[in-house]
C-alpha cells in the first residue's frame, strides 16, 4: 500500500457516479444552486432541469441528490411520481391531448384515435423525425370549448381532426 493511499481520508462527500455530459452537468448544477435556497426545493429544481434540458436525465438524479443531501432513491421516487417530468428527450414540439370527460363528450375519443394514426405514434412517444411528441393530459381547463389540445404552452379549442392536422403541420414546421 502506498503512502499516499494510506493517508487518504474517508471522503465525506463523494462525487456522484454519473455519466452526464459536462454541459448537462453544469446546467443541472446551475439550477440546483439557483433554487436550493427555496423551501422544499426539489420539485422547482426538477422543473428547472426539464426547462433547461427538455427532460430530466436519469444521470441528473444523483447530482441533484448530492446537492440537496438527499438519497438517490428519494430523488428518483419524486421524479418518477409526477407525470410531467420526462425521462427521455421530447420532440421539438409536445402535443398534449386532453383525454378527460368534458372533451370526451364532444369527440376527443375520436380525436385520440386520429392523432395516433396521423402521427404514427402512441402516447408518450415521439415521431421518427423528432418533430412531435404526443402526451395525454387530464384536463386543460378549456372544458366548454373541447376537444382541446395544447402545443407547447399554447391552448387550442374545438380541435376536430382536420384542425388537428393543420395545427400539427404548423407545429412540425416551426423552429
Amino acid at each position: 500500500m502506498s503512502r499516499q493511499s494510506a493517508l487518504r481520508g474517508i471522503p465525506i462527500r463523494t462525487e456522484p457516479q454519473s455519466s452526464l455530459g459536462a454541459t448537462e452537468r453544469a446546467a443541472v448544477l446551475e439550477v440546483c444552486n439557483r433554487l436550493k435556497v427555496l423551501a422544499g426545493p426539489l420539485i422547482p429544481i426538477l422543473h428547472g432541469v426539464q426547462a433547461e434540458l427538455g427532460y430530466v436525465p436519469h444521470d441528473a438524479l444523483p447530482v441533484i441528490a448530492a446537492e440537496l443531501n438527499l438519497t438517490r432513491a428519494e430523488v428518483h421516487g419524486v421524479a418518477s411520481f409526477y407525470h410531467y417530468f420526462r425521462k427521455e428527450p421530447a420532440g421539438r414540439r409536445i402535443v398534449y391531448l386532453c383525454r378527460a370527460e368534458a372533451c370526451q363528450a364532444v369527440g376527443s375519443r375520436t380525436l385520440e384515435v386520429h392523432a395516433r394514426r396521423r402521427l404514427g405514434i402512441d402516447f408518450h412517444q415521439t415521431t421518427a423525425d423528432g418533430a412531435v411528441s404526443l402526451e395525454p393530459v387530464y384536463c386543460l381547463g378549456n372544458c366548454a370549448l373541447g376537444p382541446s389540445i395544447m402545443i407547447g404552452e399554447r391552448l387550442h379549442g374545438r380541435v376536430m381532426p382536420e384542425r388537428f392536422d393543420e395545427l400539427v403541420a404548423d407545429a412540425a414546421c416551426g423552429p
Partner: protein
Amino acid sequence: MNRARIFVSRDSSARSVGADEVAAALAAEAARRGVGIELVRNGSRGLFWLEPLVEVETDRGRMAYGPVMASGVPQLWDAGFLQGGAHPLQLGLTEEIAFFKNQERLTFARVGLTDPVSLQDYLDHGGYRGLEAALAASPAGIVSAVTQSGLRGRGGAAFPAGIKWQTVLATAADQKYVVCNADEGDSGTFSDRMIMEGDPFVLIEGMTIAGLATGATRGFIYLRCEYPDARAALQAAIAAASQAGYLGGNVRGSGRAFDLEIRLGAGAYICGEETALLESLEGKRGQVRFKPPLPAIQGLFGKPTVINNVITLASVPVILERGADHYRDFGMGRSRGTLPIQLTGNIRHGGLIEKAFGVTLRELLYDYGGGSLSGRPIRAVQVGGPLGAYLPESQFDTPIDYEAFAAIGAMLGHGGIVVFDDTVDMAAQARYAMQFCATESCGKCTPCRIGSTRGVEVIDRLIAGQDPAAQEALLRDLCETMTHGSLCALGGLTPYPVVSALNHFPQDFACNP
C-alpha cells in the same frame, strides 16, 4: 375625440379559439384606417360559445359582437361597430345577454370587466376594499366574518372555511402558512383558471386577508403546470402588488408581513388533495397524509396552515368588503353564497355561471345552456369532476346545494357540470373512471391502488358478458370497499361515477354480441 375602447379577452379559452388573431386583426385594421383605438385584453365574461367576443364601449354600455373571426374584422368596421352598429354578429349589450344578466356575480364581479394585470384597474373597480376592512379588524374579527358568511370550501369538500381559519388562528407557532390549492384538475372545471387569468389580484387579496386573520406571513399558490397563462398573470399581479406595498414585509403600512410565491405542480391529479399537495410543496411524492393531524395544526413543514381552494380564497374579499350577511343572504339551506358553476362538455352555451345556490340542474342545462351542442337529447351529466356521479334526466331537478346532492349519492365538488348526449356509452365512462383512478392513485392505500386496477378488469369482464351477474356483484362489493377503505377522496369517490352509471344506465353494461 376619445379613442374607442375595445375589449378582446386574454383568457386562454378565448385564445384557444382565436382571440389573439382577432386582437391583431383589430389593431391592423385600425392602423389601416388611421383610427386610434384602445385595445384592452380583459378576462373572459365566461360566455365561451361566443368567444372570441369583441366588446366596444358605447354610451349605453359595452356592445358585444361574437364569435368574431379575424377575417371578419373589416366587416365589423364597415358596419360601424365602434358606434355599436348593427351587424349579424351583434349581440346587444353584454350585460343584457340573458346568460350573463341572470347571474349573481360576487366572486367574479370584476372578471371580464378589467385588465387583469392592471392594479389601477383593480382598485378602480373596488379592489382591495376587503383588505382595508381586514386591516381595520382584529384577526378574530376577520375569522368571525368568514365564519358568519357561511363560506364553505369550494374545492369540493365544502368544509366551512371559517372553522379551518379559527383552528390556525388558535394554534400558536413561530411560522404559519397560507396555501392556495390551484391544482384544478377536475374535468369540467375552469373557474380557478378564469379567476387567476381574469382577476388575479382578488386571489392575492384573499390570501393576504387569510394571512392577517391567522397570523400567517407566507403564502404559496400551488398551481398546476397545465395553466401557463394563469402563471403569467399571477406573476405579473404579484409583482405589481409587491411594488405597491400590498404584499411584502409591511402590508399597506400595517407592520404586518405577507409574502407570496407560486409553485408549479407536475401533472399529478392527486396533488389536488390537500395533504398530498402539502407533501408536494415540501418536495416529496404527492402522497396523501393520514389525518389527524389536520393541516390547520400541522400542515406545511409541520406548521399550522390555512389551505383553501382558489375560489374559496377569492370569495373572501367581497365578504370582508360587503359584510358576512350580504354573502350569506344568497343561497339555500346550509349552502350559503354563490357558486361559480361551469357548464361544459356537449352543451350549446358553455361557460361560467355564478349563481346563488338553489338553481336546478335543469335550469342550468336548458335555460342557460340551451341543450346539447349536438342537438341530440341530453342523456347524462357528470357533476363534480371525474369523481362525481353521473346523473340521468330523472335527477335534473336537483338544486345546486351540497346537501341535496349528497342526498342522491352525488356531490357538487368544484361546480363543474359535464354534459353528454345520447351517444354516450356509460359502461365506457365507468371504465374510464376506474382507469383514471388507477393512473392517478398515489399508491399509499390498497383499496385505491389495487382496487382501481381490479375494477377495470371486472368492468371489462362485465362488458364482455362473462358471468355478468357475478361480475356486477363483485364490482359493487369492490366499490363498497373502496368507498369505506380508501384514505382520501380519490379512491373513496371513484365508486360514485361507476355505481351511478351502473344504477342509472344498466343497459349499457349488457353484452351485445
